[in-house]
């Protein structure tokens, strides 16, 4: 056990620049996939929320996409696009659409009707209502969708190495290709897991910050305590 660990540490020391390079590559692929998906999925989610009738088959379709196994999906895109990072990013794009559309839809639909009436009665245009009320109130739910998508994407990118995309999965494959490669496999797997966990934490915090029901009480209390009564 200790032997393996010291091997891992040794591997890190010898290949630091290689690993950090793959780490970034890995993260960027996941992030691009989710980012492109978000650009399409957020407006899509809003549209579906606006026109209630679309919601059923829109989400159904996204659900179907989601059920395709990762390997199968990646293979399909490989056939169409060949090997490389682009294939993985495109596959991620499709996987990420569902959680983002779903959450955007849920977030927008769940905005309290009272607040919508309230905004309308004050003379907001449809655009203003969306910008000033619906999106701000749905933002934390949308953020939860992005978080979900990004964590899944980090996992999928690890498989992407089989399709010539590089990333931390590359290191794992190297480990499987040599005899007694446990240390190398771990050297790839540990940062992958860490990346997923840290991303989840950061996005979770962001989600909380974006929660619409604001209160300055928490910081205020500290100030109050500090100030002489």
């Amino acid at each position, binding site marked *: 056990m200790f032997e393996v660990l010291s091997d891992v540490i040794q591997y890190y020391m010898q290949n630091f620049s290689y690993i950090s390079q793959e780490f970034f590559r890995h993260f960027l692929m996941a992030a691009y996939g989710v980012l492109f998906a978000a650009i399409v999925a957020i407006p899509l989610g809003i549209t579906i929320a606006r026109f209630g009738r679309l919601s059923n088959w829109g989400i159904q379709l996204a659900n179907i996409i989601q059920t395709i196994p990762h390997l199968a999906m990646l293979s399909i895109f490989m056939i169409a696009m060949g090997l490389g990072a682009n294939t993985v990013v495109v596959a991620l794009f499709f996987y990420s659409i569902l959680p983002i559309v779903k959450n955007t839809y849920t977030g927008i639909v769940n905005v309290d009707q009272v*607040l919508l009436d*309230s905004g309308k*009665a*004050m*003379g907001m245009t449809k655009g203003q209502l969306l910008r000033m009320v619906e999106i701000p109130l749905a933002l934390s739910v949308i953020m939860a969708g992005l978080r979900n998508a990004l964590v899944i994407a980090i996992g999928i990118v690890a498989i992407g190495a089989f399709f010539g995309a590089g990333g931390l999965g590359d290191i794992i494959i190297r480990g499987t290709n040599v005899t007694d490669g446990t240390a190398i496999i771990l050297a790839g797997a540990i940062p992958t897991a860490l990346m997923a966990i840290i991303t989840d934490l950061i996005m979770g915090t962001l989600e909380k910050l974006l929660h*619409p029901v*604001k209160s*300055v009480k928490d910081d205020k209390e500290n100030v109050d305590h500090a100030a002489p009564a």
Partner: protein
Amino acid sequence: MLKFENVSKIYSGNHYAVQNLSFEVEKGEFIVFIGPSGCGKTTTMKMINRLIDPTEGVISIDDKDSNLQDTVQLRRDIGYVIQQIGLFPHMTIQENVTLVPRLLKWSKEKRKERAKELLKLVDMGEEYLTRYPNELSGGQQQRIGVLRALAADPPLILMDEPFGALDPITRDTLQGEFKDLQQRLGKTIVFVTHDMDEALKLADRMLILKDGKLVQIGTPDEILTEPANEFVEEFIGKERLIQMRANVETVEHMMNKHPVTIHESASLSVAIQVMREKRVDSLLVTDSEGYLKGYVDIEMIESNRNNNKTIADIHLTKIHTVHKKARLRDSISRILKLGASYVPVVDDDMRLLGILTRATLVDVVYDSIWGHEDPGKEDQIAATVEESVL
């Protein structure tokens, strides 16, 4: 200011939520819509700022058909207090209060100034500007909801049960504050409630709805004195009717309809016989058509006893009278002030209809005490009577 002409709203099929509604609201008037649940109050109100479009009829504001106006602009010119308060949880109090000014593109400084000014109106300090709605008590939120409607200084404000979710004490304070505010600022208010006490307290005029139809429109006094039908009576409540009697009842309803009278051609000896029979010390004098001529009392007869005169021959003393439509409360205080034991009640032509005696006053006070269980209200009546004594 605001005019409804044969306005109807049909939601689906042939069910009228509001049917053939016509009325007019003056500038600066406080009008209250009241009626049982589902009678169409909210629907009527929402048609004013076109959150709901009428199926038939015309609603005009300042003589302009609201249907022909741009809805967004129209709504920015009408304040609206939504029933459930509806403050935006992601905006500070300042942002909430000055939302309409922001939509109207006021400068930042002007908006901040306005927010401060508004908070002062309801005695809330500037420290609230940076807080969020969920850090305020229910009553404070309700105030902010009202301020938000006032922010851009609209001439017309719609309020849908704005004090609905408050405890009675806060509610009472806010009602008072608001009525005050409305009078000071000269706003036209359309107010929805199903609380009769609230309506009576705030309304200049009340509009009573039932099943989407207008049942009665009038001042609280008019509605209390002359309920249009049994529905209105029941809706007001018997107890409240009795309790309000002293305030709004006319003399005609409470007078004694059988005053002791004597014809002017009767002789003095007949007069004294009548007095003795009826155990009274004075008589009201009428002619053959029932017109009041004056009154005679025992002293006047005494001083003329030796002559064989009729009542018409002696000089009759002038007597104060009250009109049958006069308010009971005013009349009572008049009796008390004059020190008279009764006042004759007459119609437009001075025909004698009845009298108002101190005993009538006893009846009124009795009704207000025993006819109603709410001890707070008794005190009020007692207090008004005492005031009149002074």
